């Protein structure tokens, strides 16, 4: 029942540092090695930051300086306890940033498009904020009937967290909501549901 070739379905490329920028910040929803997630860091000069979500209470989000390897300068690395922790600090950072800044986000789609939304709200345009997918394919699903967003969906069919309706998860993607569209699966014949498939591991 999924419709393919939906234009709103994002297509991702590997992150590449934009050498025209003056300050760069890479954010990741999991600990990853920087060279694994982005190319071209050697052209960043010294003003490169890397923030990641460590998903543990043992980190404090304080800046630490490390070498980016090769010819690259130093990278200021910060590890955050959780996505919310990183988002909170990022909001503050963006409010103080000036034009010349570039943002790069890598992780699950729910995460990278939340980052893109924060960036947009802070005044960054799409050409100043790159996104790339890594990790699980699980989706946030927006119920078109009750407007609730259900997170962590891995299946073709899901019960809405808000109204309990059985939703078909479509490929239509909303950058505003960072979520995919979910519509009632049994609208034509109530109770007649298609088989549930594990589609977004």
């Amino acid at each position: 029942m999924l419709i393919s070739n939906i234009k709103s379905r994002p297509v991702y490329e590997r992150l590449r540092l934009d050498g025209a920028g003056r300050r760069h910040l890479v954010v990741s929803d999991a600990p990853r090695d920087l060279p694994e997630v982005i190319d071209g860091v050697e052209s960043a000069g010294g003003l490169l930051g890397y923030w990641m979500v460590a998903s543990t209470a043992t980190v404090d989000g304080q800046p630490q300086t490390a070498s980016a390897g090769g010819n690259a300068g130093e990278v200021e690395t910060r590890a955050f306890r959780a996505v919310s922790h990183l988002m909170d600090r990022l909001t503050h950072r963006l409010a103080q940033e000036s034009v010349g800044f570039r943002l790069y986000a890598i992780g699950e789609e729910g995460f990278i498009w939340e980052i893109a939304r924060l960036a947009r709200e802070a005044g960054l345009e799409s050409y100043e904020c790159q996104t790339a997918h890594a990790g699980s394919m699980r989706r946030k699903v927006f119920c078109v009937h009750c407007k609730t967003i259900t997170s962590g969906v891995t299946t073709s069919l899901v019960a809405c967290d808000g109204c309990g309706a059985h939703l078909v998860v479509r490929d239509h993607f909303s950058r505003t909501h960072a979520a995919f569209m979910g519509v009632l699966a049994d609208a034509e014949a109530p109770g007649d549901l298609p088989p549930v498939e594990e589609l977004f591991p």
Partner: protein
Amino acid sequence: MMGQTLKLRVASAVTLAPTLKAFRFVPAEGGLVPASGPGAHLRLFLRDGDKVHRNAYSLIANPDDRSHLSIIVRRVAASKGGSAFLHEQVREGDVIEAGLPANLFPVIRTARRHFMVSGGIGLTPFLAYIAAFEAGGTPWELHHFCRPDERGVFEALLDPYAGTRVHIHSGGTLDVLDGPLSHQPLGTHVYTCGPDALMTGALERAAELGWPKARLHSESFGGAVAGGAPFIAVLRRSGIEVAVDAETGLLDAIEAAGVEAPCLCRGGACGQCLIEVADGVPEHRDHFLDHEERASNRFIMTCVSRSKTPRIVLDL
């Protein structure tokens, strides 16, 4: 034919400086002037004996005020006659003809803040910008560069907005831009209007400081319409030949010959007037065709471009 034209009465003509004169026009037959936006310009058709000067000037008033249209004209020493005619011959009460306002330098509506860099008379579009920003409560900042002897004139023009947002520089260097360009909040756009060297200099400095191209805007005056070697345009489908003299634009000449040609902005920006070239080499003056399209010599934007060859054959 000049497309749709307006009849405007000169409500006032005020000398600001030996080479600067401000004109205020109202509709000759009453009513409101056409709607336009900040950055729009007005093309005047000035009948000077048997010559017609076609000069474009930026509108300086808030476009939301539809009671009048205002411009400032610098008398150019190497003038082909248009600016001298306005300075010497046009008086209060005269009725002159003009095209509809067109905008090749619009404000970016999604910008959070507007950073303007002007040089000399290049201030004019920003007077309309500032009026609109002030009315809408949008943050802005202006850096104006001028000769020391004209500082007073521009201070007077900007006096209503004097304060921290207006910076007038008459020191002759663009270095003063580096600090402010390094500290603009995310979402700011840069606009520049003035002499080529100033515009190029400001844009290069911004790019050096990490500004993406899409945040940088400069006034591309559609002024180079006329001027150039005369040539013959062969209109293949209409079966006629049109002589384009040194003072007339190709589109104007085609229209004068009674042939309907597509057009919209008349400034080389919109792409509406694109015509296929069957033979001859265009002299491209538009901002629409990309590098490859230009190199192919297969298309011409008739509103601004001319011909490098003595004859050019058009599919029109």
